């Protein structure tokens, strides 16, 4: 009976496992393999794809544009993750509370989730274009600014942070927030109400209830969420690419965009694979902690 159950389980998981292997693992391994070859599309015909060891990694890791993209990736991901979790905790409470019009608020909070990132990027590109931005027009009309803000092209930086970087970060937060809110909301709803009732009886303030009941009980979920956001954030591509193409002056360029540009603009699939290899290593480290946390949770349970 136990054996039949096991076979049934394997059968159930087989399709998704097959897709993961064919569409995820194999291309990833192929890409890793390419990162150790000279794979220049303009030279393949005459010179083949000789093994070059770690030369591609050395080239990429000594390229100032790639180093800048690593810094930008970490900075944008850090900002997105921190802000989105903070806002998520707040908005999840709003969604969890009971009041008139809650359904409408829930829909509004979740609305950005219905917009694919590609579409969101296109819409926000228009919203933030210097000369046609309705935001600039509104701020001008209100007398708050007397010249247009260059949301996507201002090259002034303070500690490496520029307005375009903040603009792209804001759009990524806007687009990613509903997922986080729903995730945290699910966690909130698993916390027994009796704990809050007991806290109230003991005289705990709202803040203390949040600090000593909500946060500790959400900790496992927040941990998983943090790691998932880091993994998806490190490899993020579309919003940065569509809104700015990594510009101005590389200030919003991230590792995935750099890899794309190497492959499809310069025809250097070897450098692109090496850049992807770096992304793989970073996300691999994060995944290690994620899986370890999952296993630990399983053991604890």
């Amino acid at each position: 009976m136990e054996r039949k159950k096991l076979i049934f389980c394997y059968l159930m998981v087989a399709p998704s496992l097959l897709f993961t292997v064919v569409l995820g693992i194999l291309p990833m391994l192929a890409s890793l393999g390419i990162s150790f070859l000279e794979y220049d599309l303009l030279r393949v015909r005459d010179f083949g794809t000789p093994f070059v060891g770690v030369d591609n990694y050395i080239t990429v890791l000594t390229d100032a544009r790639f180093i800048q993209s690593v810094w930008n990736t970490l900075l944008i991901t850090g900002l997105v993750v921190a802000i989105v979790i903070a806002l998520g905790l707040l908005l999840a409470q709003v969604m969890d509370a009971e009041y008139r019009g809650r359904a409408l608020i829930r829909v509004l909070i979740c609305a950005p989730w219905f917009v694919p990132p590609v579409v969101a990027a296109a819409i926000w590109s228009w919203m933030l274009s210097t000369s046609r931005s309705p935001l600039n027009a509104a701020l001008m009309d209100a007398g708050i600014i007397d010249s247009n803000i260059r949301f996507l092209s201002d090259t002034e930086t303070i500690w490496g942070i520029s307005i375009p970087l903040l603009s792209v970060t804001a759009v990524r937060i806007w687009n990613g927030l509903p997922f986080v809110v729903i995730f945290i909301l699910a966690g909130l709803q698993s916390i027994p109400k009796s704990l809050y009732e007991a806290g109230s009886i003991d005289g705990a303030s709202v803040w203390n209830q949040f600090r000593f009941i909500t946060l500790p009980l959400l900790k496992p979920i927040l941990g998983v969420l943090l790691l998932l956001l880091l993994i998806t954030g490190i490899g993020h591509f579309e919003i940065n690419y569509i809104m700015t193409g990594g510009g101005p002056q590389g200030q919003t360029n991230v590792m995935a965009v750099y890899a794309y540009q190497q492959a499809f603009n310069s025809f250097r699939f070897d450098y692109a694979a090496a850049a992807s290899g770096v992304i793989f290593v970073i996300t691999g480290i994060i995944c290690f902690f994620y899986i370890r946390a999952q296993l630990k949770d399983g053991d604890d349970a």
Partner: protein
Amino acid sequence: MSVFGRLPRRPARTVASALLITSTLGLAAAPVNADEITFWSQPYGDLLEWKRGMNALADAYEEQSGTKVNYEVLNWSVAFNTWLTVAQGGAAPDCADMYWLHSFSAIGGDQYGPLPINEYKDQWPDLDKNFYSGSLQDSHYRGDFYGIPWRGDVRPLMYRTDLAQEAGLSGAPQTWDDLVTYAKAMTARDDNGNVTRWGMSPGSEIVTQAYIPYYWQAGGVFMTEDGKTATIDNDASIAALSFIRDLVWEHEVVSPEFMEKSYDPESEFLAGTLAMVGSTPGAWPGRLQRENPDLDGKWALAVPAAGSAGRDAYAGSGYFGVLRGTEKVEQCVGWIKFLSSPENMQKLSEASGNVSPRRDVMASDFWSDTDWKKVVGETLEHQHTSQHPSPAWSALINDEPGSVVYDMMYEAIIQKQDVKEVVQRAQARMQAELDRVSK
């Protein structure tokens, strides 16, 4: 009525469904039936009208030859990556509407990508007589014949005539100095001194293509005829880059954002926040006429303004060719011959709005029934092919950071670095890229 003739109209819903399925599932593999070929083309003009017209041509060809043509649209948004994949062995049709022959041939080598069809060239005995020579360069590579050019993208200057008149200017700018005069006169500012309308954009949002004609107009060439030696460290580069830099910073008539991805000259022109485009993609005027009747009579085309060496206009071509791997070369050649007949080239030119590489089509009434079309015809006399004899060319002029020409422009124009030093660095980088292909 469709410019393709009186042929049955299929329901728009069917076409839309087909497009949706095509874009969702990807393009289908070649059919197995010996009497069928698969043909891809990018869409031009009105999408549904174009697809309907191509299907009609395919039906007519089937009736004539017995060969069924399975026509599929390859959307521009995925076209480049698709052809790049095809050149590396990805799923390919039997024949197609293609471009960038030099790069894709070099990438595909003798395994994938475009297939030379030298043995069939004699089916077009008057090629040199009937076609503009510049367009034929785009269907030949290393002496091999790859197909028939069918569309051109010649780029004239476009400007707002109403704004020019308001500024007291008549006629079109003829020289670079005129460009400065016109752009200054048509630039508008608010009470705070903020620009509300830029006088000029050098070209389209593909900024590297925008730069190229200015370099030619200053007398420059990018490489030697064998494609092995870079030739940009010269006075022409300095003149072209300095001219555009001055337009941005000294005359303040070009937006300092014009090289950023978020800058869209076509939308700005339509919105009235841009008065002139120095090098206008061939598709814009037709689209403007079709989709913006409110601007009728308010814009005009002109032959590009003259630099010190001429009025060269950027020109590109697309061609009908055959793909390696197909077993239906003869059927494809027959289909291409059918498409390249004068009457079908006329239909294709009218439907797409693209200039035709065929001289007789450009001499037709269609290309002289409006002022702007006449100017397009005049601009053809100044066309300069954008193809260059190196497979590295498309990487060199890519319009994103990292390409030689983009970086050169950004450093010299936007960052205001020493132009001479920038050009010297670009020359070294370009030479390394050209060497990359052969050493």
